């Protein structure tokens, strides 16, 4: 049995590694085809990306991406495609920022309130899609994407002077009222730049994800529904309730995505709050195969790629190449995982057959001996 596990582990790592290698190859081709030198580009990326201030950047960005990956992964484990993480986190961060700016309570009280607001808003927004799916059979893929755009519209409407937004001193951008100093989340005083304290929350979230799914009855039920709705129903799970519940949890986790930026970086919500992180989450969840450690590695990789390609902009390349790299990685990794899965299944079946045959042979031998 242990042999199965080791082999499965190796196969599990082989797929993403293969995908990354292919991605770099394709990128090299693209760069070469457009007249740029690929290998020095990679050299710059790796060199810059591993510097100590880059490491801090990667950890900080990685925190946000990790939470996004977890949020999406919860959906994936349920065979639900919560593409709406993007709208959920922005709406959640917006309302949390607005609330945070409006209150001045002691930090120990205000910070949890901000986080809770974000989680509730995110959960509710995701819950709409869950309820629509369960009651009206609307595919959550389409509904969550629609909700993303509606969320953008809502934020656009409210983030204006006179509503929830206000113009800053320089008169250049509109944002929510900044949250008071007492509500700034702590940081690790590393050099040269601090690491956001929210990384602790992210780690806890990852652990909670692993524990809940793998060690609790609820998690078992959730995974069962994701694997086979009919078997889950026959085993006593209320599938509809589970769908809505998991969308709520996924949305709540999505709500956390904006928190590192809000509580450790910008302290307000404005037009330049990071966007598109929902899709990053999807990519990372796919890369990490919905596994908490895999997602963490994926998040760090994504952060590394961004950092490295950002530097490329100053060296005569286009930083947008990161989109190419990431896109190719995602496509290759999903193909690679499928190939690995099929191969693993075939191996297992032939192994089972062989072991059973061996057992049968041993048994008949023993019979002959005793007879």
């Amino acid at each position, binding site marked *: 049995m242990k042999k199965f596990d080791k082999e499965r582990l190796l196969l599990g790592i082989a797929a993403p590694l293969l995908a990354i290698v292919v991605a770099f190859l394709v990128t090299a081709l693209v760069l070469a085809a457009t007249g740029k030198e690929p290998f020095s580009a990679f050299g710059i990326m790796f060199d810059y990306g591993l510097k100590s201030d880059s490491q801090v950047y990667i950890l900080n960005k990685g925190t946000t991406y990790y939470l996004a990956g977890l949020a999406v992964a919860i959906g994936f484990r349920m065979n639900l495609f919560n593409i709406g993480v993007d709208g959920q986190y922005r709406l959640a961060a917006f309302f949390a920022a607005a609330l945070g700016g409006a209150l001045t309570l002691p930090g120990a009280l205000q910070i949890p309130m901000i986080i809770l607001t974000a989680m509730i808003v995110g959960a509710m927004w995701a819950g709409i899609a869950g309820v629509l799916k369960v009651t009206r059979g609307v595919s959550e893929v389409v509904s969550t994407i629609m909700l993303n755009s509606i969320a953008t519209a809502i934020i656009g409407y409210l983030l204006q002077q006179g509503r929830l937004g206000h113009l800053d001193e320089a008169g250049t951008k509109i944002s929510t009222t900044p949250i008071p100093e007492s509500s700034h989340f702590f940081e690790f005083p590393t050099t040269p730049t601090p690491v956001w304290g929210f990384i602790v929350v992210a780690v806890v979230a990852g652990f909670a994800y692993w524990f809940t799914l793998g060690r609790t009855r609820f998690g078992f039920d959730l995974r069962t529904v994701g694997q086979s709705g009919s078997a889950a*129903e026959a085993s006593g799970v209320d599938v509809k309730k589970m769908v809505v519940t998991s969308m709520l949890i996924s949305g709540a986790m999505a709500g956390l995505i904006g928190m590192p930026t809000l509580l450790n970086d910008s302290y307000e919500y404005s037009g330049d709050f990071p966007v598109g992180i929902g899709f990053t989450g999807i990519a990372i969840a796919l890369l990490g195969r919905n596994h908490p450690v895999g997602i963490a590695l994926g998040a760090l990789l994504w952060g590394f790629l961004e950092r490295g390609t950002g530097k490329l902009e100053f060296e005569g390349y286009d930083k947008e190449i990161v989109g190419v790299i990431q896109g190719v990685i995602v496509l290759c990794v999903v193909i690679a995982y499928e190939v690995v899965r099929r191969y693993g299944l075939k191996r297992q079946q032939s192994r089972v057959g062989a072991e*059973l045959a061996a057992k049968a042979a041993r048994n008949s031998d023993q019979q002959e001996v005793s007879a």
Partner: protein
Amino acid sequence: MANHDIDITVSRGTVHALVGENGAGKSTLMKILYGMQKPDEGTISVDGEQVSFGSPGDAINRGIGMVHQHFMLADYLTVLENVVLGSEKLHGIGDRARAKIKEISDAYGLGIRPDAVVEDLGVADRQRVEILKVLYRGARTLILDEPTAVLVPQEVDALFDNLRELKAEGLTVIFISHKLGEVLSVADEITVIRRGTTVGTADPANTTSKQLAELMVGSELPSPETRESTVTDIPMLTVEDLRLTATDPDGVVRAVLDGITFTIHKGEVLGIAGVEGNGQSELVDAIMGMRTLDTGALTLDGADISRVATRKRREDGMAVIPEDRHRHGLLLDAPLWENRMLGHVTEKPNSKGAFLDLKAARADTERIVREYDVRTPGIEVTAASLSGGNQQKLIVGREMSHNPKLLIAAHPTRGVDVGAQAQIWDQIREARHEGLAVLLISADLDELIGLSDTLRVMYRGRLVADADPATVTPEELGSAMTGAAAGHLEAPGATGSDDAGADSSETDPRDGGEDR
């Protein structure tokens, strides 16, 4: 090795039967004959000419047509579309094809309407569409794979009449089956397969089913027979006036369950016979709690469970062997120990409080594997890598491990090899002995007759007939199953008039009961 040293000769214009047990190698042989698989060694000759089939298309070109056991029909397409698919060049896809289909249907008495949507057709009709499909393509040799598996005796007779008409027109029919009685009644020649090789031919006029059975199995046959009665008078499951209606998308209201009432006592096996689609699945769903009834009351061991959730019912002692184990009984891609937890995750040893107890679950899985003889190299393999029989044994072991009071066994030995089938029957009998109440739903009349203490027939959502398993014959059951008989089924007065040498007092499970 699935097949070795197969020697078969089929004469033109005859009905030739291939008999063998489940797992004897018939499926593989048939795949080779039909071109879906290539033999490693050996030759196939058609009309004296050696042929090699690389695909079903080659076989079709040679005039060999296959009627599959599991119908290959697209439900949402019409009969016409299903028939012409892949052979549009023959007669187009419009009126010419339509005319040709009508022609074939009339010639062989198949009664098929080209523009009917397959979804609306019953099982026997769908089978005739499959037959028409091969005739449309000019098949002169038909291979039928277990054609009577899903038919009631009356439909079987109708099918055999069709086959005789085909024979009269000079076509050849190869008929694969494990039901000896039927085989004897329609075949001109019989070849027996056992463990992947041909072991002999037989002439039906001079063979009894017992002789055939011995050729097929070669050793003592396990039987679902039961001896002493273990029925007590303590009711375990009572079901009162269950009613369930369903509204078609057209607005037509159908009665799916129409006033079902019965009681199962401790130590009793209640068997329900019926053609699929008469409400049996819905009845199981209702008892499990997966469907809400319009009216009706259910009690389990004295407690009213009419409104109780499925999970609670299972915790209270309701064990289920589902009809479709892949969809309702197993997580195919999960390891065996996770499958052991399925359906009982809230109970010991699977969990302690809200948390899973993986160690205990694993250990208990090992126990089940041992006690129920689940052939597997370990408990970490996925359920998908087990054979059907072993999957079913795992399910039985799992369900029996939580002190069940009621066992719902829906088609418990469907798709299971002979050895596992015998083991499962033994387990059910043993549990019955311990006081378990069993609701057995099956399409295997032998299984029903052999295992049940009480026998009922379900038709159009109602229990229309009851019978004594010790004396009832499959024909009587078949009549009731198709609505032609009702009430208490009595065996006919004069028995033994048509026995061709077989001892009718020993109910041989291989015997379809139709000795001719």
